[in-house]
């Protein structure tokens, strides 16, 4: 049942996974992505009476999550994630496909701005204009980021994405 304005539970249910998958692609770390998405929703909840009246409350959560993702908060929180993401009971969870792992590994090779642009464009469905506004740069810059990133990814994903690197 849809409420107007929407309830916190409705927005959470509709957008948590979609937002987390973007952050997952950006960090390459599911647990860290989940933590940041959850923190963004917690911040929204603490001021929900205001946020719920925005035209698009989910956009506020998304913006907050991405701000957290590139902020000092994220770096400070990583201490917890490092250990937790390898907890012994984790292997029992269903993992993502190998193709996703390869894609995330290839994205990790990109500079952060290019990686953000790719994730926001392909997974967040943001337009070039919206990405430019979020990043505070010209649209041409975003186009350039996407162009370079596509070139890099084409090279990486066209190469051997299977197997194990031997050291």
């Amino acid at each position, binding site marked *: 049942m849809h409420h107007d304005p929407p309830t*916190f539970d409705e927005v*959470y*249910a509709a957008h*948590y*996974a979609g937002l*987390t*998958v973007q952050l*997952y*692609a950006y960090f390459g770390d*599911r647990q860290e*992505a*989940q*933590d940041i998405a*959850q*923190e963004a*929703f*917690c911040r929204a*909840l*603490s001021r929900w009476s205001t946020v719920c009246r925005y035209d698009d409350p989910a956009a506020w959560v998304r913006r907050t999550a991405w701000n957290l993702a590139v902020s000092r908060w994220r*770096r*400070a*929180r*990583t*201490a*917890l*994630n*490092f*250990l*937790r*993401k*390898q*907890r*012994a*009971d*984790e*292997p029992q*969870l*269903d*993992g*993502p*496909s*190998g*193709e*996703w*792992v*390869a*894609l995330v*590994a290839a994205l990790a090779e990109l500079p952060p701005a290019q990686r953000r642009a790719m994730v926001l464009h*392909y*997974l967040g469905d943001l337009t070039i204009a919206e990405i430019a506004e979020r990043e505070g740069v010209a649209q041409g810059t975003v186009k350039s980021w996407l162009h370079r990133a596509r070139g890099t*990814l*084409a090279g990486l*994903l*066209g190469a051997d*994405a*299977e*197997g*194990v*690197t031997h*050291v």
Partner: protein
Amino acid sequence: MSDQLEEIFARTRPSAIRAIRPPGAEAARRTVRIRRTRRAVSLAAIVVLAVVGGVIAGMRPPPPPEKRELPADPVKLTQTAKVALGTSSTPAAVEKATEVKPGWVASSTRYFGGLTLRATCAGDGSLTLAVIGNPGSEMLQTEPVELARLDVPCAEKPEPVETAFEIGQNFPDVDYKIVDVGTPAKPAGLAFRITSDTGEPLTAQDERANPTFALHLTSDKGFGSGGGITAGRRGLVDDLPSHVGGWFRVLGACAGRGTLRVDILKASGKVVDTVRVPCQWPPKRYDFEPARGSGDLRYRITFESSKPFASADFMVQFVPR
């Protein structure tokens, strides 16, 4: 490639979404509730302290006439304390110097390894420096925990004092706080440094500290197991998935001090082979080719250390050959 990329993103997105475990809206409510409670308690404590402080100040009799002395310069005292602290052969994780003020606090992220807190105080009196771990917001434990406490005597020619401690995995943030100053407080300068037995200080955001990164895997081929592990405990025992087969390589990386032991077992419990991964900072990948097994296999991972209850973090990948 652009269209191909769109396809790849669209095709892989569902599998990534399936791997996501939302903590839930109720968990968010719980977190917000805890934070509000904490904030209210802190505010109440400040108000009580202010009221009590005001009452005590009002009750205090007028001080007797004293021989006037020129106050020592806190800046110079702080500088003296820094000099007395000396230099360190390894890079410092945290290094601070300050005029001694009750309640002064500095913060840092969590550092790995065995840590040494070394401090000096120049001036009169003494102080206590506390290391306080702040639990993550989603931890069951919500109250800060004192991880170490160091009494630091102040002197004109200060001598360094030190103590050892570790920052547990539950504390992503740490405060260093002056909790006790001799009364009446006299001018003094404090300097302290924290070093780690990892050599160069390693924090969790440092990929070099992460055993998973140390493996340099480019796919999830095979089967992986990882996590925290403590010496002297049973360890981790589980079945090896059938897709790994009986002929595989073992790739291991372990962060800590000691040895990670990986036993390959038959269903009967008989050991097929054992490999040992040296644990170190930063963790490094080791490759092994254990003897070929047959039938249903299991694995057992234990941690061996000369220190009882020492812990390490590891990642082991079994890759079919």
